[in-house]
Structures are given as structure tokens and as C-alpha cells.
């Protein structure tokens, strides 16, 4: 198989609050022979605040990056972050669908956009192009005995007409990849239920309730860990887990991984590359349990 190669859009949070996602994504892709070519001088996609303010502004902020990717000669942009994915895809789809809209966007940009590249999540490429089988072949430290729930968040596969990936109600891509890595995936019924998204700062109460519900359900199912694919979800469940516990009078201590970290672990990548030390809830007890429970049983 020829080497897979894509333009890569890391997203702002990868430089800060989700740096472990960024590190582990890069490490994993390198190990799987996927070439991520970072878009030079990429800028913020605008995220929710931009599309909540204006659709043309939002498309322009995202569009600048699509233009830069097209200048690289790439026809597909990968991003690990679902929020970036939504914005980049929305911008692309609307500009492709309406010349009038595209013109409005171009009016805001220094360089008008010509060709509009495709945008996909890193997860989609791993699942569709490499496949669970391709991942399984490279697993050297299977996650046997690790019981996980996969949490996709609300916008990784929704709305289906925009995302065109996996199932909008019961996505299975991460499940299959986790199973390929040897983990046991528990049937989590709230895979796409919102965690509270960006309301952590302004309306923490909303996040406490929504993320609390997710953690309660994961705990009840007997999960050792939650696996995520979204910086915002991961932050709400991991960094804010203490806040959730005090708000809801619970005592969760559930590690919340990025799926890239666990896949990297199964592939035997060095811990330092996976940023496990960046997680707030200590993941080591769960990771040390790998392989042991099965032996006991």
C-alpha cells in the first residue's frame, strides 16, 4: 500500500488544552505510516463562537485554511478535532453549494478560494482507509481486559448529511478500532449525547449535569475508562471531572483517554509520545490493569 498522505490541520486546542491529543495523533499516524503535512501558518477555524456570530465570518476563518491546504496541492485535509471538522466541512460544503455564498466569503479574504479540498477526521481515515484490520496487525501490547466505553460526542458524526461518516446515532468506528487494539468495548448508549460543549466557562452548571450523566453511565456499566475523540469532550470529562464530582456529589475517578493514546499504547509507542502524563485523572491504574484481569479470570 502506498503511503497515505494528507494536509493536516491540528486546531488551536492541540497547542494547549489537548496537546496530548495532538502528540498522540502525530505519533500514531507516524507509526501507521500516515503522512500528516501540517498546513503552513494555519489559523483558528473560528469554532462555535464564529458560527454563532455569523456564517460568512465563520466560513472565512475556516476557508482561509482550506485555501492554504489547496495551495499545498492537497485535496484532503485531516483534523483530529470534531469542532474544527464541523467548521471546515460546513465552510467547504456551503461554498461548494452556493457561488453567492462563496463570493461573500471571498470578499473577507486576502486571497480568494478556488478549489475546495475535502475534509475528514483522522478517525475516519484510520477507520476507512487503514481499517481495524490494518491497526490490529500492528498491535504488540493488546489492551486485553481493559473495559472501555467509547464516547464520540455530538458532532463527530452529526448531522449525517454534513459528516458523511459512520452512524449518526450509534457510531462504531472507535469501537472497532478499540476492539482491534484488544480492549473490551461496553455498549454505551450515550455515545453522541452532548457533554456540555463550550459552556464550561460561561454556564458550568450545564456541563456539570451533562458530563455528570455521561460519567454516571460509564461508571454504571463498569467501564475502566472513557475513550474520546474530541478535545472539548475530553476536557469536560477529564479536567472538569473534579468539578462534576463536587457539583453532583459523586466520586468518579474515570480516566478519559483520547483514542489515539490507547491505540498508541497498544502499538507499543513510548509513553512520552502519547502525553499520558497530561491527563488529569491518573490513567496509570487502568493501564497497569491491562492483561491482569484476564489472567485472574
Amino acid at each position, binding site marked *: 500500500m502506498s503511503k497515505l498522505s494528507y494536509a493536516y490541520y491540528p486546531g488551536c486546542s492541540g497547542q494547549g488544552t489537548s496537546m496530548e491529543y495532538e502528540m498522540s495523533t502525530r505519533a500514531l499516524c507516524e507509526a501507521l505510516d500516515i503522512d500528516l503535512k501540517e498546513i503552513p501558518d494555519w489559523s483558528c477555524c473560528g469554532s462555535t463562537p464564529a458560527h454563532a456570530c455569523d456564517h460568512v465570518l465563520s466560513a472565512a476563518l475556516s476557508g482561509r485554511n482550506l485555501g492554504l491546504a489547496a495551495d499545498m496541492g492537497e485535496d484532503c485535509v485531516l483534523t483530529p478535532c470534531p469542532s474544527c471538522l464541523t467548521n471546515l466541512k460546513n465552510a467547504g460544503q456551503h461554498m461548494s453549494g452556493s457561488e453567492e455564498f462563496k463570493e461573500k466569503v471571498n470578499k473577507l479574504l486576502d486571497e480568494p478560494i478556488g478549489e475546495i479540498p475535502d475534509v475528514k477526521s483522522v478517525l475516519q481515515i484510520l477507520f476507512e482507509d487503514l481499517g481495524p484490520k490494518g491497526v490490529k496487525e500492528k498491535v504488540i501490547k493488546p489492551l486485553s481486559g481493559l473495559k472501555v466505553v467509547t464516547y464520540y460526542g455530538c458532532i463527530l458524526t452529526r448531522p449525517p448529511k454534513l459528516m458523511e461518516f459512520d*452512524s*449518526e*446515532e*450509534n457510531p462504531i468506528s472507535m469501537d472497532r478500532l478499540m476492539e482491534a487494539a484488544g480492549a473490551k468495548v461496553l*455498549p454505551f*448508549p*450515550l455515545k453522541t449525547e452532548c457533554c456540555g460543549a463550550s459552556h464550561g466557562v460561561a454556564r458550568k452548571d450545564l456541563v456539570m449535569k451533562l458530563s455528570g450523566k455521561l460519567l454516571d*453511565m460509564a461508571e*454504571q*456499566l463498569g467501564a475502566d475508562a472513557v475513550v474520546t475523540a474530541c478535545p472539548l469532550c475530553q476536557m469536560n470529562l477529564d479536567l472538569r471531572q473534579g468539578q462534576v464530582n463536587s457539583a453532583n456529589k459523586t466520586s468518579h475517578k474515570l480516566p478519559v483517554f483520547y483514542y489515539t493514546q490507547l491505540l498508541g499504547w497498544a502499538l507499543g509507542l513510548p509513553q512520552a509520545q502519547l502525553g499520558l502524563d497530561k491527563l488529569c485523572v491518573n490513567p496509570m491504574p487502568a493501564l497497569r490493569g491491562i492483561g491482569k484481569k484476564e489472567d485472574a479470570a
Partner: protein
Amino acid sequence: MKIGVFVCHCGSNIEGTVDTKTVAEASLDFPEVTFATDTMYACSEPGQDGIIEAIEEHKLDGVVVASCTPRMHEPTFRKTLERAGLNPYMFEMANIREHVSWIGKDREANTNKAADLVRIAVEKLRRNQPLTPKEFDINRRVLVIGGGVAGIQAALDCAEAGLEVVMVERESTIGGKMAKLDKTFPTVDCSSCILGPRMVEIAQHPNITLYAYSEVESVSGYVGNFEVQVKKKATYVDWAKCTGCGECVEKCPSRKAPDPFNELLAPGRAINIPFPQAIPKKAYIQAEHCIKLTKDKCGNCAKVCPSDAINFEAKDEIITEEVGGIIAATGYDLFDWTVYEEYGGGRYPDVVTSLQYERMLSASGPTGGHVKRPSDGKEPKKVVFIQCVGSRDKSVGRPYCSGFCCMYTAKQAILTKDHIPDSESYVFYMDIRAPGKLYDEFTRRAMEEYGAQYIRGRVGMVYPDGEGQLVVRGADTLMGTQVEVKADLVVLAVGAEAAKNSPQLAEKLRISYDAYGFFMEGHPKLKPVETNTAGVYLAGACQGAKDIPASVGQGSAAAAKVIGLFSKEKLKSDPQTALVDIKRCIGCGKCAETCPFGAINMTEFRGQPKAEVLETVCQGCGLCAATCPQGAVQLKHFTDNQILAEVEALCRF
């Protein structure tokens, strides 16, 4: 030729946007038109009398009526001409209603267009020849496709009227969906108690031949003389010998076969008799699950069968039946609800369909009529019904209302209380559709007497709470908020869709079907059980979702149509058939190959091969005329010359 033109007002339907008087005046300038007038309602009795008077007074020998669609009134006016002593085929219609007045508002443009359409009709009529229909015999036997309640009603009505009936049923028993139901609304009478005797009548009626586990393979011929190939699928049981004792079913070790009659609620056996009242009560083997047929082992059934009826060598069989009329009564199927991933998509055992719930309620069902949840066999105390699953939902391609779900859900809520007195039922609905006799009262009873909680809103998601119950999260739009109910069992009121392979059957029958696969009736109001193919009729849910009373009504209606058809001494063929100009025909045979009705024979004339049209078989579709490389085949009244004359009339500048 002297042509008369009659321009109809159709009340204000045409006159509202077309100046009919001006159209009539303009018509007088068209060739051979010697009389023209406008008329209030051409189809009314005075209207027709006016045409007859004009024919006599002005010695007309052809008539053009400019009014509505020929689908409706061409037969009417042909009869008018006949009464006036003219050949009924010296008549043409210009449709200035559907094609003009209803689609445009510009009176002047409409008037001009209407005049053009009359001009076209006149040019065609000038080239018409008097035609005489041929008469042919009727085979007074009728085929009923589908043995559900609609087909049963149709078959029995026909048989009682003395007709020979052939019934073809896809499953191994007749009874259809109704046989699976526990009780029926709004009377809550036992479904199998009222249907069972009718099924027995089918089996016992001397005029009825039943082919169960069979399908219609192909249909040829035409009204009065159809030839039907029926495929009798191999059952691997000689039904002449099988007594339906059930010994074989008892001893069958293949216990994971599907049990379609019980809606896959519980596994069945590879050899099976669907239910105790099955008609015919005969065993059949599901080949792909039979150990003998797949692995050449076992053969238990053959060993225990007291009448030596098992035959593993059986093959599908094709039988030919000749009939004069056909009634399609193929019913419906349930929408594949598993596309609703938000309701579990089939992953949660305690989310069942309404039809599965009927089997749970039924004494002949796998739980013996005790309601038990599939997951753990416990009796549910809180049952949530979700309506409109696969109905009124554009996002799954089912925008239509299935019509009967509101009613059966009310019935199931009532029965739930009867079965489990300390249970509570919740019904999520959008609108209650209960327009039948005693229907609304029935849904009220579910609420008022049986305490069913009706909640107005759709359900967004169903998920297990991890403690053995299901969380149903919906909306109560009347209360104006989100609501959650913890349920032990969730019943989905799954909507109806066209029976599997309906389009394929429609094509065999040469009838139309809609975008969803339901068969099209001849006219939405006036021909509800007819189709656009003569001799083929519809009954029941194959035409669109309907409940038992409506299906039975249609069964009788379709039977009446067949009885009416067969009451004629002979049938008349439409004389607008194809005609071969023997001088031009080169005998290539392309027309015979292309004719979908087998209406063209190749013969010899003075040693040359020539095509010949069988007038009573020809349906006048014109395929042969379009195919003939010599222009030797012409369709009477649609000849090349006529069509060219029409085009020239339109493009005269």
C-alpha cells in the same frame, strides 16, 4: 366530411379562464368544420342531447368535444355518437381543462391554446376511419393473489357467485397479517375467531383452488383471457399426504430457524406449521435451516412422519392457470424500523414492534398469551408505546400516515391493562387519527377507562438505564417540555409499507405503482379497486395502508367488479389496434419480438413471411408501430399520417 365542434364551459372550470365562445367561433374556420358551439356541460343530459340534435340537424359525420380528459368522458361521448347513429370512433376530444384552463390564468393565451388544441383534434378526426370492436369469449375464472383478509373476502364472494377461483398465497398458510393479531379494534373481538371460519371456508369451498407457499411467476394475455404461471415453491412435504399432526415439528432438532409467523420473537424449527388454525394445516421445511437439506444428516421428520409425507427431493413446480380476471390483494409489510438507531436499531431486546406485541398478547403466540419481556421473561409493569415509527417521517422516506396505528395502539394499551391490571401504559403520539365508526370513542376509552397516559410528542431516544429498564426520552408538546419515562417494555407502532416485491408483481400484472410501491387504483375516487389494466383489480392494503374493515370492503368491491365483468356474454375489444400493411411488410419479425402481449403472429403470404395482428389480443400500445423499420405497422387512429397532421396543425407558421 362534416365536423361539429362542441366547446364545454364545465361550469366555471373552463369558462373561468377560456373564452369558449371565441374558441367555438374560431373552430368554424378549421377545415371541414360546419358547426361549432359552446355548451355549459357537454357531458350532462341536455349537453349530450344538444350534440345529438346538431348531428341530425347539420348532418354531421364527426364530432370534436373540447372539454376535459378523455380518461373520464371519452366513453360517454362515444355512446352519444352511437345514439345519434354515427360510428362511435368518429370522435375526438380536446382536453382544454387539465391542459389549459387549470394550468394558466391568462384568458387570452388560454383561449388561443384551446383553439389550437381543437384544431389538432379536427385534423386528427378528418383522418379517422369508422371502427368496429370485435367480440371475444371470457374465461370465467378469477385469480386472487394473496390470502389475507382482503383476498379471502374477494375469493369467497366470487366463489359464492359461482365463479371458479384460484388463490395464490406466498406463505404456507393463508390469513395474512390479520391471523397474527390477537384482538381487533374497536370491538376487541378475537381476530382468529372471526377470521378462522373464513379461512376454513376457503379450504372447503368447491369453487376455490388454493396454492399456498406459491407465487405468481408470470402473467400473459389480456382481460377475459389471462394465462398465469404459478410457482409452487418446494415445501419438501407431500401435502396430499400430510395430515398436519405436527409430529415432525416436535422432533426437528434444528431449533434456531426463524419463525416468521411469530415475527421472530422466538426461534422456530426448520420444519414448521405456522399456527394451529393454519390453512392449509400442512408442514413445510425452511430448506436453508434443515440439517438434512444442508448437511445431508438427520432426517428425523421423515422417520417420525406417520403418513410418509416427507420428500427431500422435492423441487419447485410451475403450474399454468387460465383466468379471465385477476384480483391483487398482496397486503403490506412493516417498515424496517431498525433504521431508527435512536430507538436502539434492534439492539435492545425489550424494544419490540407492534406486530411482535400482538404475538406476545396472543394465546397462540410463543408466550401463550402471557406478556413477558424478551430480555428476562418478566412481566412488564410500565409499557411505552411510540407511534409514527416509519410513518409521517420524511427523514426515513415515509411521509405518509399508515392510518391504522393510532387504533391498534389504543387497542394494545387496553389489552395491556387487561393482561396486567397493575400495569401502566404511556402512548407517545403526534395526532390521533380515528375517523372510523366508533373509532374515536375507542381511543377515548383507552384514556378514560383504561388510564393510558397519552403524551403528545415524538420520542427522541430510547436507551437502557443500566438497571434493567429503558429510558424513553420524548417531548410533551402540550406541557411544553421534555419528558422521560422509565419503561419495562417499549412497543413501536411501526408503519406500513408496500409488501416486498410489490413493484415486481405490478410489472408482471402491467399495473402502475406509486413511489412507495403501493399499487395505483384506476381513479382515486371513482375507480378505487380498478387498475388501468382491464381485468386487473385491487383489494386491501396493496393499494395503500388500510385497516380490516376497509380491506374487507375492498375485497367485496373487487369481487363485484369481477362478477360484473363476467356477467357479460362476451367482451368487446378496443378496435384501435395495430394493422399491418401487407404490401410494405418485409417479414423481419421485429414487431412480433417487441409485442409485450404476443399479439403478432408471423404468417406466410404467397411464400413471403408477413406479420399479422390478432385483433382481440392487441392492446393498442403502439410498440410495434414504433419498431417497424418499414412503417408497415400502423396503429389505427394513431397513424403516422394522423400524428404528422396534428403536428402540422400546431406548427403552421
